[in-house]
């Protein structure tokens, strides 16, 4: 087995171009589990640990750009929490301190597990993924990147460079149900993002389908029923909340496994949809609190 330790993005791309079958290793928190269990036997490994530029974080024209090798611990930084609080919330629920120190956002997306904690949030935020490789540099909307259960749009030789996240002004929620408080894979998860400027709502769901996905129909149903102000959004008919939660739950296509039953997962999504909405949106006539 050969391990390459490039230090720049160009070197990395060159290494991958030379051996497209090479395995990209970021934090290794998914890869090493597979290797230990004999599910993967890499002949060539390209390690991202020394590529500092892949961990760059910046804001460009209202877009938060996170290098693909940004770790969960780095996602907890106040600068990120200030512009994308749901990402920080999601990062905080991942694994343990050790896993958060090693695991990366790029690895989470490339693994494309339906339970990946950043996925529902990034979907709800409308994020896209920047990729370079044999087919050239390109951007793919996240929902198109997640092509199937544990399958992404990455092709052999591709490197994920960054995740691009529109900065949205307004409430953001990430809720996760699991079997314990720490070190837990989501049994069901939900992100809700309100954009007060664009006057849109995004709802991402995790662990209730073959991939994480957007509950688009529920969001479409909800948006016209909201009353928008500059600094808040309200739902005049509180009863609409239940219908909304039901629509979100209807979008779920969960399965039974040893962590939970499909029925419980659907129920959990419904409860979380209603809770997230209650936190993000003011219920009742808008003028009452608008003083």
């Amino acid at each position: 087995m050969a391990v390459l330790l490039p230090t720049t993005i160009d070197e990395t791309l060159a290494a991958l171009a030379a051996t497209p079958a090479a395995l990209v290793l970021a934090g290794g928190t998914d890869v090493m589990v597979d290797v230990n269990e004999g599910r993967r036997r890499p002949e060539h490994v390209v390690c991202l640990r020394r590529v500092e530029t892949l961990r760059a974080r910046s804001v460009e024209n209202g877009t938060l750009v996170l290098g693909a090798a940004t770790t969960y611990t780095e996602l907890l930084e106040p600068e990120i929490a200030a512009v994308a609080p749901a990402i920080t919330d999601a990062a905080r629920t991942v694994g343990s301190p050790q896993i958060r120190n090693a695991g990366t956002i790029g690895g989470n997306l490339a693994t494309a597990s339906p339970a990946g904690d950043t996925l529902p949030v990034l979907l709800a935020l409308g994020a896209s993924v920047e990729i370079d490789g044999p087919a050239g540099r390109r951007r793919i909307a996240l929902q198109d990147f997640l092509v199937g259960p544990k399958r992404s749009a990455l092709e052999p030789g591709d490197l994920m460079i960054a995740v691009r996240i529109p900065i949205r002004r307004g409430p953001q929620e990430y809720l996760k149900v699991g079997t314990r408080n720490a070190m837990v894979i989501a049994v069901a998860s939900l992100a809700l993002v309100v954009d007060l400027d664009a006057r849109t709502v995004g709802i991402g769901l995790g662990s209730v389908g073959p991939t994480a996905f957007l509950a688009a129909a529920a969001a479409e149903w909800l948006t016209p029923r909201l009353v928008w102000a500059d600094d808040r959004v309200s739902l005049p008919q509180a009863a609409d909340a239940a219908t909304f939660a039901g629509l979100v739950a209807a979008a779920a296509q969960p399965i039974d496994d040893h962590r939970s039953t499909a029925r419980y997962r659907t129920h959990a999504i419904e409860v979380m949809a209603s809770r997230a909405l209650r936190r993000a949106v003011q219920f009742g006539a808008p003028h009452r609190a608008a003083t």
Partner: protein
Amino acid sequence: MPGSILGTAVVRVEDPDLLTGRANFVDDLPISGVLHLTFVRSPVAHARVRSVDMADARAMPGVVAVFAAEDLGLPPYQGLMVLNPACERQPLATDKVRFVGDAVAVIAAESRAAAIDAAEAVVVDYDELPPAIDPERALAPDAPLQFEALGTNRAAAMHAGSDDDVLAGSDVVVRGRFENQRIAVMPMEASAIAVVPGDDGNGHDLTVYVSTQMPHGVANKLSETLGLPVETIRVIAPHVGGAFGGKPGLAAEHLVAVGVARHLGRPVKWIETRSENLVAMPHGRGQVQYVELGCKHDGTIVGLRLRIVGDAGAYAGFGGALALGPTRIMAQGVYRIPAISFDAAVAVTNTTPMGAFRGAGRPEAAALLERIVDLAADELDIDPVDMRRRNFLQPSDFPFTTVVGTTYDSGDYEAALNEALRHAGYDELRAEQRQRRMRGDRWQLGIGVSAYVEVTAGGAGSEFASVTIDTDGGATIRVGTSAHGQGHATSFAMIVADRLGIAMDQVRFVQSDTSEVPRGGGTGGSRSLQLAGNAVVGAADLVLERARQLAAQLLEANPDDIVMTDDGRLAVAGVPASALSWERVAAAAADANEPLAAEFDFRQEGATFPFGAHVAVVEIDVDTGAVRLLRHIAVDDCGRILNPLLVAGQQHGGIAQGVAQALWEQYVYDEQGNPLTSNLADYGMPSAAELPSFETLNTETPTPLNGLGAKGIGESGTIGSMPAVQNAVIDGLSYLGVRHIDMPCSPQRVWSAIRDARAGTLPPVWREPPPVFNSTRDTAGAGVAAEAADDIDI
């Protein structure tokens, strides 16, 4: 005399080494030329082994040897006890594999990495057979057989107690089918062994370093199994990172490691990985309990009928015997129960063999009793506390022999419960519960109560200790117990300090080495302080006796006039100036060519019965079924307390493991016998984030059976907490009509119960037990296992 050190909170002398990483565990030992072992384990639950192709593996770099069963020719493996001799286990599987994880071959290589790689290159041809995974279904007549020659999967069965209808005369009978689920033992350090074959220059032909609770047990079993004189085997347990019943002597892999080392004439070691540990180390619990309790209208218990299915796992693991042993002998619990009828049937299943886990059969007894008593209280509309008070055995009843023939030494069950309720503020909690219910809060309150009694030092009842006064005036203690986290170095040094006035930092502690300690039963079943502690007392007293004679000679006085001074020297009474140091007395003994030392084997006339009462307070989110443990109050009575710090430590750790079983942990297989929870991401072991700080208290009811008045504390926390927490969850939902939820009370199960209660579709708590119990009364030969199980001491 200054006040005794006994009963005071002395900090642990073993902690500095552990906390600074100076302590050595098996994997840390520098053994030159050591080979690394890796097992090739079955990926299927039940199959015939057609062939094992080791050629590729043998050719791999770094590989020294690869062995299948016939290459080593080892005798069959025997665990702590034999439940059924027809279910013999070969240390490496021969004709069949019987669980996922069953070892088929072993690699010895120069590095661990080489061994792991080679294990993957061994090709085993399996002819898959249908497995029997669920213990109840394994007992059905058409179930696939694990041992064809046995003709059944029933490894053992028995009937005990009354032959009559024990429920006759009841006004009300409550019935429940309870699952006490299979859980993993999960010590922080998994299994580990290093074997050095050949002459050590000190008369040993075999030196074994092993992570175990019972070094002498390992030596004895190796001697029996391999036909080697026991004095040629030296077994050492270095620091051991926890055991919890999972390391009770020789494991099958240990036997293989010894076989390989002797075959190659080279040192080897096997350090188990975590995922391997989750399939290879015996699991605990695993009972399905059919419980019927008859009562009068006022709550007075009339009779108890128990039918229990035990899971023995593959090869009739000894854990299957716990249903026949500890669960049966503790079946009466803390209550006055005029008649008990007990039947148990134990199944072999194609799962990891069952063994012991903290409490080993007693938590299962306490759990079924505390659940059925709550069900009865609910049925009769009596407060669960009153229900218990109406039926408790009373202090004047002791010593008390139960209807299943167990003799309890001492107890005051109501006092412990009263103390727990007082500390918890029971009435206020109930008031808050009512308020939350009236308000229709999302977070409802559940209050669970348990009262338990358990049995400790129930095995052979004897233990060795010696005390030697060293030439520097310090003392060396040797004991046959084998602490692995409990703090014996501290407790036993406290005893010597108390008896002989030697400062604790001058007391040396020797354990866990069969060449240094002539005999010993190891540590398990919460036996150590009461047996070894009292042996240390006995040895120290003999030393003092001899020292007084020596001092009397030196001081030309009568031995009866020699006393110990406040500063720990020996003097003629009233003449402190005459005082002699221990150093001086030891020198005199050495001059007389008879070192100042004594051995003592303490034998206890029977087991002791610790008891207590716990109160758990939980909050339940009725929208999601999430449960939060808010408070846990434990009053555990382990007789007289020698070191309250160590007792509290045992309570905290024990409670955490009981709570974990009640709320999170369960080892799950799919229908094919694939383990679904074989890593820590999937297995629901909690962390500090799930647990509040526990409120631990004690009452002290000394046992008359030993001089220290001590009973065991190692397992009490687990036994008391598990039913209290389960009861709390169910209590929190009782207003909806929920009467039972099996453990673990996961959010999904709790929510399902809420949903079903609201829809009026709650499943019944009872169903008829399987037909296997039609014949348990006339099972011949079952008594053998039952008697052996009586002596079990893990």
